[in-house]
């Protein structure tokens, strides 16, 4: 097996504050291989967005990132200088954000902004960059692409703006795209279109993608691998088939129970819910992070939680016996 494109070990994000340090990301491990789609799912506040921002080196100044390893295509991201990160961002790793309405600069035309994304990293005549911008706008399904270049963001709808953001992320043909809930702010009718588009382009250009979402339906359709995040930890990771068909962590099972399934969920039958709320992010958590909301919680849940694995399907729970403790290897 080839070495992964992105390899992350024990990634932590801390927010120092007056009333104790917050730990929104508490040591996560994962690998992303070339051309692979990894979906990260979890509730709001589980640390998904911070994880992606810390990969891009875009965390705010007040946030602290640490990890044992963070390697992207052989480059150590932990030791990378600001200049090295700038060369990677946009060129080899790109990001699509949740808020298409505010993610484009209101005072520049979309053409300027698309062309900038390319010219920051490649030396080429402006006309050539412009041609590339038109090509990509067409690729993301925008009609009359050439005439759109002169338009300003406020003249476009949310769906169109997100298409522009996708085109912008693809300008330099990055090896990895991080899409942070790219369709959350859009109309339901547009959501499916945008996701389909993004997925097709990622496959066509053979890029790797980390897709952050809380739509499990989306995950089932597009993901190669799934990582379930809860309170800053990855509680379960595996292929879609493994995680969806045989969820091993009670939290994953809880999430799946929240979704109505044709044929399984009876008419009038209430959908599942997970009682309680996400634990406080201040200070360290003893034992399992999901203990306070888990129906199976027992005394053992207070102790150290081993990471178990079955052929790369990893989970952190004391309850499911019979699986071998995991090596330090991640998915």
């Amino acid at each position, binding site marked *: 097996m080839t070495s992964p494109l992105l390899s992350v070990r024990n990634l932590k994000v801390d927010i120092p504050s007056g009333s104790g340090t917050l730990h929104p990301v508490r040591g996560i491990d994962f690998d992303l291989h070339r051309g692979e789609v990894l979906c990260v799912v979890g509730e709001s506040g589980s640390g998904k967005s911070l994880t992606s921002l810390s990969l891009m080196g*875009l965390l705010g100044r007040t946030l602290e990132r640490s990890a044992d390893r963070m390697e992207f295509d052989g480059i150590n991201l932990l030791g990378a200088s600001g200049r090295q990160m*700038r060369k990677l961002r946009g060129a080899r790793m790109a990001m699509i954000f949740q808020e298409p309405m*505010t993610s484009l600069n209101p005072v520049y035309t979309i053409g300027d902004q698309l062309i900038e994304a390319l010219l920051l990293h490649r030396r080429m005549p402006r006309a050539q960059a412009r041609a590339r911008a038109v090509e990509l706008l067409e690729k993301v399904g925008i009609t009359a692409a050439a005439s759109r270049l002169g338009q300003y963001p406020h003249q476009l709808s949310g769906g169109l703006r997100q298409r522009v*953001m996708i085109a912008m992320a693809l300008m330099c043909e990055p090896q990895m795209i991080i899409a942070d809930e790219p369709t959350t702010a859009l109309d339901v009718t547009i959501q499916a279109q945008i996701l389909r588009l993004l997925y097709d382009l990622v496959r066509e250009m053979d890029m790797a993608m980390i897709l952050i979402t809380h739509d499990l339906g989306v995950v089932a359709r597009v993901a190669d691998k799934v990582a379930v995040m809860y309170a800053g930890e990855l509680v379960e990771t595996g292929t879609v088939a493994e995680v969806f068909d045989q969820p091993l962590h009670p939290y994953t099972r809880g999430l799946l129970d929240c979704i109505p399934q044709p044929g399984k969920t009876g008419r009038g039958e209430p959908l599942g819910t997970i009682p309680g709320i996400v634990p406080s992010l201040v200070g360290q958590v003893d034992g399992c992070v999901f203990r306070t909301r888990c129906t199976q919680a027992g005394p053992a849940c207070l102790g150290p939680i081993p990471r178990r694995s079955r052929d790369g399907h990893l989970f952190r729970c004391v309850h499911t016996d019979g699986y071998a403790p995991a090596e330090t290897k991640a998915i």
Partner: protein
Amino acid sequence: MINFVLRRLGLALLVSLTVSFLSFMLIFLSGDPAVAIAGEGASMADIEAVRSQYGFDRPILVQYFAWLGQAVQGNFGNSYYFNLPVTDLVADRLSVTVKLGLCGMGFALITAIPLGVIAAMRPNSIVDRTALLFSVVGQAIPSFWFGLILIVVFAVQLRWLPASGTDSWKNFVMPTIVLGYYAMPAIMRLTRAGMLDVLNSDFIRTARAKGSSELRVMFKHGLRNAIIPVVSLAAVQMGFMLGGSIVVESIFALNGAGYLAWESIARNDLPTVQALILIFSMFYIVFTLIADVLNACLDPRMRSS
């Protein structure tokens, strides 16, 4: 864009007309102008003679349009006090005031905008605190006091700069600093606040995600958005500087238009006052127009509104 400029021009023209009417009507506010011109102890016959000589016996609207017709050709009549054409008198004084105003505003913008940006890049840092202190002091100290202190230090003690007059560029150094320092704090703090606001925007994160350098993020993506309210403020301040730099002009004995206005009011020299009020108002109107057009260039959303 052309539509926008035309619309703004039309609006400016209407405002100018209103202002011209108001400034023309000023002459009747302080009593019968014929009595004032004829002077103390004039007989009724003298007053009547003055009245018909100056045309005060005609209907007001006729007088207004006659005055306006002359004014647009640059003829504001003769000063009662100097008995010279107001236009010559004002043109001479105005060149000093305009020079001073432009220098003062230039100084204010050159210091305030970089300071505001730097302060916003590191909020609550030493640089930010120092800039804040600098601006609070600027807002708090009166111009006349600051001007006098400068004169004491640089003209009297060190003898580097002349204390008064308009002979060379050296005469403008201290007045520029006093006038500029007065305008600087508001511009700096508005720049800082605007930048802080803009730097939290999602599109700034997008710019970083593209791989832009910090300088590019600050100036290309940040400042262009943050500067928009600053342009409007600077326009108003510019108008104020050209009309209201009386204090600075009198301290440094710069015979400017502000000082002339003050003198003319004291002397009841109405044609000069009328002309100056009209000209000062026109400055405001022109600078607001320039600011609006500039803002429309900076922000496409304003063009359509």
